[in-house]
């Protein structure tokens, strides 16, 4: 029952009792009888009241309980929310996080694979991240190792420095004693006429050499002691004082100019005549004398250094020691040096970045080069720079800096000598052919004992134009010549009524390239490689002769000539097999006249045991 109802019923009952009492009182009845039940009702009321109060209390208690529960869950919720926001922040932080290792420069995959090939066997199944970590670890180890090595090296360097210092001090302490010794022995020198002074003077000159020439000179001196084929000397000025003055002067002008260019960045024009002053080679240069194999000539190389161009140039001169004639050899020396190495003709300045430096002075490399060549200072070949330890770039932009100078210089000299020898032999051969002071039939290159049926009747020099006109078809097929010039000759070979003209083109880079022969047969019309396959095969056979196939002592040009003559013999002897009157009978030993569908003739000469045969 509801508390309100409970009380209400009590109140209603009480009111009824009151009303009854009032009625009775007003009626004047005796009250005692009715009073006691009324009083009892108060007790009941009190009871109800107590009950209600208890009810309220318990209700309040419950409310409190529930309330605290709600509070608790709310608190939890708050906590959770806070946690969420915190986590979100954390996520953002994580996303923004960048490991320092990304800035590290790691080993490339390849290097890594090489260096840690052994212990990285199981990383195939590792995740990407793990591999990375693993690699970082490896890297760390490697770096630590390297660091250790570095520090070890540093300490050893320190030690060496200390050592050096100690030694220097030790030697320096000798100096005063030596000086007194020198002075005291001077009379002795004079008495014995020792030439120490001269050497001192020389050394006093070459200490003024620019770095590049100095390196060259020192190396040459060293080589000179072991070999006697060449001599080198510094040419310049006699007295020390003059030299110093000169050096000072050039330094000053250099400084001035530098000063000037810094001040005036505006365009300045360098007049042509002052190119002389601007470039100005170092006043000292080196003379290098190489003797020819037969001791009749000496080749003088004059090496100059150009401060501004940072390169050295060489000019060659040929001197005859016994005044014999050497016509046509002037070009030879130039060709010799210009084609010493392929693609190194000295037609550009091979110093990296020189064109930009010259641009600042308003010069071009072409102009400078022109100046050098015009004034006879020679050309800046790459091999020469390498001899002086100057770094070069060639046309293909490959960088070269030679460090093993000793070996390189020796190599270059060997090459020059060898080339020279080849050239001398070639000129000898050409001279022999021109003046016909060779007996072809008994020459030792003449492989076939029976001799030749054809004879060489003429060997003359012709112009290149004439050569090109004659042989336009074949030249077209060849790769372009870079910087190579050619000397051409015409040879005439005759047998009976048949005549063969040979056009020979000798390249200036001989023997890198070998002479090219072009054949033309005049016999029942003109036959060349353009209209006759047999002639073309002949020509191939002559031109395919490589120097490496020659026997020792054989001459290339002679061997080529013999090949050509034999081929011509064979051609004539195999031609016209159906004619009733044959002009040329078979004289050479060969088995079959023709083979293959191309009707190849037996141009090849072979020696089987002791028998000689010609074969296809």
């Amino acid at each position, binding site marked *: 029952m509801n508390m309100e109802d409970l009380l209400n019923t009590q109140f209603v009952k009480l009111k009824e009792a009151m009303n009854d009492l009032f009625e009775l009182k007003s009626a004047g009845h005796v009250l005692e009888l009715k009073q006691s039940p009324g009083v009892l009702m108060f007790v009941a009321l009190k009871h109800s009241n107590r009950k209600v109060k208890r009810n309220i209390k318990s209700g309040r208690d419950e409310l409190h309980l529930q309330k605290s529960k709600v509070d608790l869950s709310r608190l939890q919720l708050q906590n959770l929310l806070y946690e969420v926001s915190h986590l979100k922040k954390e996520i953002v932080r994580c996303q923004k996080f960048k490991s320092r290792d990304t800035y590290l420069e790691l080993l490339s995959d390849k290097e890594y694979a090489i260096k840690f090939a052994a212990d990285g066997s199981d990383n195939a199944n590792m995740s990407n991240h793990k591999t990375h970590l693993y690699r970082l670890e490896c890297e760390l180890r490697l770096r630590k190792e390297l660091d250790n090595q570095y520090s070890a090296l540093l300490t050893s360097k320190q030690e060496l420095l200390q050592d050096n210092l100690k030694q220097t001090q030790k030697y320096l302490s000798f100096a005063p004693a030596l000086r007194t010794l020198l002075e005291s022995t001077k009379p002795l020198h004079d008495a014995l006429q020792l030439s120490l002074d001269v050497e001192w003077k020389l050394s006093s000159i070459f200490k003024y050499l620019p770095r590049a020439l100095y390196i060259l000179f020192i190396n040459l001196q060293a080589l000179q002691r072991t070999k006697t084929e060449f001599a080198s000397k510094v040419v310049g000025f006699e007295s020390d004082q003059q030299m110093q003055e000169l050096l000072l002067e050039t330094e000053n002008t250099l400084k001035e100019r530098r000063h000037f260019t810094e001040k005036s960045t505006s365009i300045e024009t360098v007049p042509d005549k002052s190119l002389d002053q601007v470039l100005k080679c170092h006043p000292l240069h080196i003379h290098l004398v190489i003797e020819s194999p037969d001791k009749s000539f000496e080749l003088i190389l004059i090496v100059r250094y150009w401060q501004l161009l940072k390169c050295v140039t060489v000019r060659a001169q040929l001197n005859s020691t016994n005044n014999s004639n050497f016509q046509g050899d002037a070009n030879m020396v130039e060709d010799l040096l210009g084609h010493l190495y392929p693609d190194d003709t000295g037609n550009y300045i091979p110093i990296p970045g020189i064109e930009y430096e010259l641009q600042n002075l308003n010069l071009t490399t072409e102009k400078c080069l022109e100046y050098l060549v015009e004034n006879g200072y020679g050309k800046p070949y790459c091999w020469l720079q390498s001899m002086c330890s100057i770094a070069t770039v060639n046309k293909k932009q490959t960088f070269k800096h030679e460090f093993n100078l000793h070996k390189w210089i020796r190599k270059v000299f060997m090459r020059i000598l060898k080339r020279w020898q080849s050239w001398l032999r070639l000129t000898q051969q050409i001279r022999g052919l021109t003046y016909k002071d060779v007996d072809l039939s008994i020459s030792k290159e003449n492989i076939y004992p029976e001799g030749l049926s054809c004879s060489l009747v003429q060997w003359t020099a012709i112009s290149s134009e004439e050569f090109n006109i004659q042989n336009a078809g074949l030249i077209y097929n060849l790769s372009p010549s870079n910087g190579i010039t050619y000397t051409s000759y015409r040879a005439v070979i005759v047998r009976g009524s048949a005549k063969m003209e040979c056009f020979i083109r000798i390249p200036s880079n001989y023997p890198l390239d070998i002479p090219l022969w072009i054949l033309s047969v005049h016999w029942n019309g003109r036959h060349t490689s353009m209209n006759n396959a047999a002639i073309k095969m002949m020509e191939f056979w002559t031109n395919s002769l490589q120097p490496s196939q020659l026997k020792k002592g054989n001459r290339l040009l002679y061997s080529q000539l013999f090949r050509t003559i034999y081929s011509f013999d064979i051609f004539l002897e195999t031609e016209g097999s159906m004619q009733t009157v044959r002009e040329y009978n078979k004289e050479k030993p060969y088995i079959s006249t023709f083979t*293959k569908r191309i009707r190849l003739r037996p141009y090849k000469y072979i020696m089987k045991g002791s028998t000689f045969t010609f074969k296809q």
Partner: protein
Amino acid sequence: MKETDLKRAYNNVLAQAISTSQKFLFAGNLFGDIFVLSLNELNKATEEPPSKLKVFPQGSDVDINCLAFHRDFLIVGAIGLIYGIQWNEEDETLSTKRVWEIKIPMQVDAVEVPDVNSFYLCSETETLYAGCGDGVVYQIDLEDGRIQREYRGHTDYVHCVVGHPDGRIYSSGEDGTVHFWSDKQKEPTAILEPHKNPQLLRPDWGKWIGAVSVNDDWLVCGGGPRPAIWHLRSMECTRTFEYPGRVHVCEFVDDSVLIGGEHNHVQFYTLNGTLQANIPVEHTASYSSVWQTNPFNFMSIAGFSNKLHILKDFRFLDSKIDMYGNVQDEMEDEDQEDNDEDEGEDDSF
């Protein structure tokens, strides 16, 4: 002369073959190199330059005298030797290994190893006929590589072998004869000697017959003697051609006759002997022609020059394709960095 220049100037292509798929052309030269050209590239209508050739060197000691293509391998005729190499159509590569090799037997009195000069491949019977330097035509079974039969009769080496699937074989040789053979008869069925015909004889150039070709009724041959058409049954010479050079190539192409050789032109004639087309070539002499009409018209003429001449309509020159200097992965400039010891350039070495 540098080796590249030498090869470029004196490239002599003796043999060509087209693959079974008709997509690739093979050309072999006397330097032992086989060039492969993709025909699809040529047939494209686009203007872009055709792709480069591939080259498969067989060794400088191998003279490639003739080529044939059967199934998926290329047959090479060299000196005293016939060998097959696998052609991989997908990778477009020739295997470096020889799949099989047949040695030509040396005759008892022979002093030189005979060249394999000419192939006739009869794909119906899987038989290869090889005309060789010893004057013998060898009939080879491609199933097992056995020499089934030797056709003997020529007194000098064989220039050219052709045939017909019904068993007729024709061979021409340096001895000036064309031998007619049947696979059922031991002796030649007939012998033709064009140089005995005064109309055909050109005395300066000899009697050899460099090339022969047949169809059902007619035969064309030439060499030192003038090229001419012969009727197969009556053995009568019905028509001569005025080709001005020595003949190394003659062939029936559709309704006309192709003649080539040591002349700066190759010529097409009608069967009546009138000149149809006169095509200038760069070869000093033309030695080989291959052609197909399906899936597209294509003819390639090769010879003693560095170029293949391509004809698409058999009347006009379509293009010239360089061989050396036009090869994939070719080194333009070999490194000439020679070391100090070997300069290989001195006379006295």
